[in-house]
């Protein structure tokens, strides 16, 4: 560790490692190509960019991409029909519905996501995948949370017996991450509403702080115990530039940081594609938070 500075956990490097081993696995496999489908509604600039990143990474690995782009005026029924047809297509292994759907489109993204068969839900964002995580049942784990755990694990950051604090209560990252930390053996996890005025105090007691609040530089050095690990997930846009939840000054106090950008984002893409390759083989990705999960024949859910 550099003097007075936290170790920066390099999500891009770890992503490249994962994509490299996936590429080798895909190249060595016989049989039909692995197909990853994305569904994008509207033309929001950030969403278009995220989908393009995922496509590029998939192609790099040798996964075939099927990108469906629908106008914001697509109706609920047409959107659900599109997702359902990908769901029933045996050639497609993984389906991603890019969120959010455009504001004002009147589309119900929860209902649309429910059309993704759980075994193709490689982003792990449907209610069923979240429920499988709650119950400790085999399933695709939410990609961002699983990616963060993998990154910590790849740097041998121990979780067992530690105290964790998660700032944020979103069901995409904060909630699944809290569950996965529990599964990984943390002694306690505090889940903190970003609006809470005592959030800093709760965080100072933790060995691991994760912030998914989407509030620029919310987590300052006063929030962090010396030597703690700090994970920056939230994204704000300030003057066209991506700004995370964690103040850079935290690096003087923390033992390790997952930066933003360059941490959770690349790891999300890596897990998404690892889940897709696993889905093509009829199984689920082994998670850092628990034992290897095999698909159980005949169990729906």
């Amino acid at each position, binding site marked *: 560790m550099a003097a007075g500075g936290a170790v920066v956990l390099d999500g891009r490097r770890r992503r490249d490692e994962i994509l490299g081993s996936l590429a080798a696995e895909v190249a060595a496999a016989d049989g039909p190509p692995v197909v990853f489908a994305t569904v994008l509604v509207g033309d929001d600039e950030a969403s278009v960019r995220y989908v393009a990143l995922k496509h590029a990474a998939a192609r790099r690995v040798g996964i075939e991409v099927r990108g469906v782009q629908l106008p914001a005026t697509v109706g609920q029924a047409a959107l659900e029909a599109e997702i359902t047809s990908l769901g029933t297509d045996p050639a497609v292994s993984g389906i991603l519905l890019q969120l959010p759907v455009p504001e004002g489109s009147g589309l119900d993204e929860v209902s649309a996501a429910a059309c993704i068969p759980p075994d193709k839900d490689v982003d792990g964002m449907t209610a069923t995948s979240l429920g499988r995580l709650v119950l400790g049942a085999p*399933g695709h784990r939410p990609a961002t949370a699983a990616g963060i755990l993998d990154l910590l694990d790849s740097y041998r950051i121990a979780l067992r017996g530690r105290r964790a604090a998660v700032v944020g209560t979103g069901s995409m990252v904060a909630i699944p991450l*809290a569950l996965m930390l529990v599964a990984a053996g943390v002694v306690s996890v505090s889940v903190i509403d970003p*609006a809470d005025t005592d959030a800093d105090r709760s965080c100072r007691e933790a060995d691991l702080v994760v912030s998914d609040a989407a509030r620029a530089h919310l987590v300052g050095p006063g929030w962090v115990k010396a030597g703690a690990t700090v994970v920056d997930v939230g994204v704000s846009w300030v003057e066209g530039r991506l700004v995370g939840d964690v103040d850079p000054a935290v690096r003087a106090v923390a033992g390790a940081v997952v930066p933003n950008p360059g941490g959770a984002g690349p790891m999300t893409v890596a897990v998404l594609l690892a889940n897709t390759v696993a889905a093509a083989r009829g199984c689920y990705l082994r998670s850092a938070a628990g034992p290897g999960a095999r698909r159980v024949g005949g169990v729906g*859910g």
Partner: protein
Amino acid sequence: MDATIIDGAAVSATLRGRLERELATLRRSGGAPGLASVVVGDDYAAHAYERRLRRLAEAVGCRFQAERLPADVEEADALATVGKLNADPRVTGILVLRPLPPQLSEISLYATLDPLKDVEAVHPVNAGLMARGTPRFVPSTPASCFWLLDDYLRGTGRDPASWLRGRTVVIVGRSHNVGKPAIWLALDRGAVVIDCDEHASAAGRLAAFTRQADVLIVAAGVPGLISADMVADGVIAVDVGINAVPDRTTGGVRLVGDLDFDSVATRAEALTPVPGGVGPVTDVWLVRNALLGAVLQQTNLAIRPWPEH
């Protein structure tokens, strides 16, 4: 400090009155609720619970059906029993009681439940909807904890929605049916939630968490786990544990909770007793969930998983 003992029986009676009115409304619209329990083997507590539910259900006019399977039942037969209940239109709620013998996969059994009849929200889709804060059914035990808490706060002139915001709720125990859903209910009320379990006590660290609690919910299944020195003055403590311990005076057994009741009562603002706290509310909640199942079968009638008070 004189702690208030929260009277679960009284709250349960009020909730039962509401349930009976809702049942009458349902019947007028042609609906009929039915609760079915599945018990495997001869676990005493499971059978006792089944009998208690039957008494309550039949007293309020809800059909009740008990499925009893032998301890050595094959998984295919257990799944078939659930399938039969799924297909039976008279059954609107299915409760699979634990413990289950080792040859049965709890997860497979849960995933076989019709999600629209899964009154304890253990099917993956319902567990996920619960975790996301958009429950179809709220499982009975954690629901009862917060129903009691809300009722107590309201009764003492505090608005539960605003009072809990920013306060610390500590949940001891991480079970699928109590601890985890309690996290979601606490977050839903804007609380800071600390989730830990009894393993923290082995490390000598449990007290460091429980002392931070404005509201303490204990569902660890360890008799007398929490004593006065482990809580802050003025805590509101909700006890989910039901533990049978030998009674030295009678030579029989008696039921105690996870709180060392007399000890915690010296510091708490209020606490729930065992028995007579969470338990009686749980039974009514479960029958109400079967009613909710009947509504789901029937229409989109406006009965909500979490009723307005």
